[in-house]
């Protein structure tokens, strides 16, 4: 068993090193001066390259890394807390709330970038708060079931509202903007935007990381975790907020980036087994890798930008299909 732990720790360290290398390579990758890698020599001499590197690529890449880490970790937390391998971090009204908020700002508030972001955050958090309060008012079922039901209802409300906004939107100016926001992308990320959300994102990631073994206990049914001396209600709420808040603020600057939070936890569990002591950090690192890779493609493949959400959905779904077909080879339970 200790040898087990050693190999897992070593694999995590390797993965961390890989993320670091990928980060450096990605920062050098781009379409300036020509599609491909920027040489360090040129970076040292070319002032435009330096500005590109420090003001555009670095904040964007960091955001991609944090987005992937947060979505995957939050997905892992949600899948365990809800004992359901198919939930995504945004399902408690957060994703649909953010989408509605962004569309609302584009249609009614003129759609300035910071207003859209503020509105997306506001409605994402409102979605979470609404789901939470609704779950407290429901009078049947366990806590988990009530949260799920409330999340579904709130998401449905927001998505109906989003449909209405799309219908009202000017088809020539506003509708394309809404559509692009819904497809997700990191092209507009700046240092200012990133530093604005950084404290909350880092705090959320830290809480999830610190609770990585404890998360196993919260995945048990409530009476069992109670019998193991936990106050499961309180710890669950803490972890839900630690997962949802950074997700909400990141979505507000990235738009909808789907599938990362669903698929990366599965791969992490496949590679590092279920114990979240290892699979949670693994999910963070794998998510960061996946999102950085997708964003690299998004910004370099074509002269124009490919929306990030399209790529994460495309590759996420492909990986998902692959995983499912591979699973068929195992003996049926």
């Amino acid at each position: 068993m200790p040898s087990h732990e050693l190999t897992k720790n070593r694999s995590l360290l390797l993965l961390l090193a890989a993320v670091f290398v990928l980060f450096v390579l990605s920062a050098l990758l781009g379409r300036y001066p020509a599609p491909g890698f920027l040489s360090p020599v040129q970076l040292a001499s070319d002032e435009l390259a330096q500005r590109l590197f420090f003001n555009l690529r670095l904040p964007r890449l960091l955001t991609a890394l944090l987005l992937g880490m947060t979505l995957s970790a939050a997905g892992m937390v949600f899948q365990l807390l809800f004992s359901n391998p198919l939930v995504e971090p945004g399902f408690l009204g957060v994703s649909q709330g953010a989408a509605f908020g962004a569309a609302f700002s584009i249609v009614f508030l003129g759609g300035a970038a910071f207003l859209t972001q503020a509105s997306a955050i506001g409605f994402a958090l409102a979605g979470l708060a609404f789901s939470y309060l609704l779950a407290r008012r429901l009078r049947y079922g366990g806590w988990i079931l009530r949260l799920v039901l409330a999340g579904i209802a709130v998401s449905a409300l927001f998505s109906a509202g989003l449909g209405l906004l799309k219908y009202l939107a000017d088809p020539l100016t506003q509708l394309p903007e809404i559509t692009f926001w819904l497809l997700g992308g990191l092209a507009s990320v700046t240092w200012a935007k990133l530093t604005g959300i950084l404290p909350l994102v880092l705090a959320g990631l830290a809480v999830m990381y610190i609770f990585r073994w404890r998360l196993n206990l919260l995945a048990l049914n409530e009476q069992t975790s109670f019998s193991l001396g936990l106050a499961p209600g309180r710890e669950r709420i803490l972890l839900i907020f630690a997962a949802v808040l950074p997700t909400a603020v990141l979505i507000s600057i990235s738009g909808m980036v789907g599938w990362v939070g669903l698929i990366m936890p599965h791969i992490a569990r496949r590679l590092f087994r279920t114990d979240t002591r290892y699979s949670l950090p693994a999910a963070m690192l794998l998510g960061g890798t996946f999102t950085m890779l997708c964003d690299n493609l998004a910004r370099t493949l074509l002269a124009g930008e490919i929306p990030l959400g399209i790529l994460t959905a495309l590759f996420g779904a492909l990986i998902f299909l692959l995983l499912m077909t591979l699973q068929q080879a195992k003996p049926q339970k």
Partner: protein
Amino acid sequence: MTAPILSFQQVSFGYQPNHPILTDVDFALKPGRIAAILGPNGAGKTTLLSLTLGWLSAWKGEIQLAGTPLCALPPRERGQRMALVPQSEHTPFDYTVLEYVLLGRAPHLSPLEMPSAQDVEIAQDAIEQIGLENLAQRPVPQLSGGEHQLMLLARALTQLTNLRSPTSNYHLLLLDEPTSHLDLHNKSRIIEVLRRLRNSGVTILMTNHEPDVVLALADDVLLMQPGQSPTFGPLDAVFTAEALTRIYGIPIRLAQVDGHKQVLWT
């Protein structure tokens, strides 16, 4: 006169207002004994275990664990003193048996602590005591019903192992139908494990439907009947043919076979 480890004082409880399941339950369990809760389906046996655990709170009356009111006990200390083996537990994720049993160390760790090598050792010991060492790396969803139940007992043993105070005379183990999924071999194994635990000082409170297991194990019996306060006392005094006939509503006899008491029915 030893102080009771668990006492119910005039405890009443129900799930819906005006529909009490338990009325004026009153008993005191002495340390180092095995008590069986017997009664027909729906008499409130599992409810009584949940009340003991502190998961449900009584309408009125008080429940004390070693003299301390249950509600005044900090959760972690409660977890170190009292463990529950539920009838079954669903997990959609494929933890290994060892990982799952290791979760029993939770009350001994602070919220930010990870289990140490020593905790792993304790979990492995418990798995060996139960005789599951060959399955330690098996994914939990692949276990049979009986193996699953044995694993839950191993987790409870892991939970009740206290390194700082090795005496176990303030430990209470709650079991809900511990033999319901077990074959004869595993049943005798669990009976042996529970006896050994009792001899080391652990107090055991279990619900059970199987008279042979009760006869083999129990020192005390709590007989429950819907709508009436239960009878508590030593096995010989409470576990009588008349009492069983009354609570189950069918004729039941007790007979001596090969020097062992047996329950005859039908």
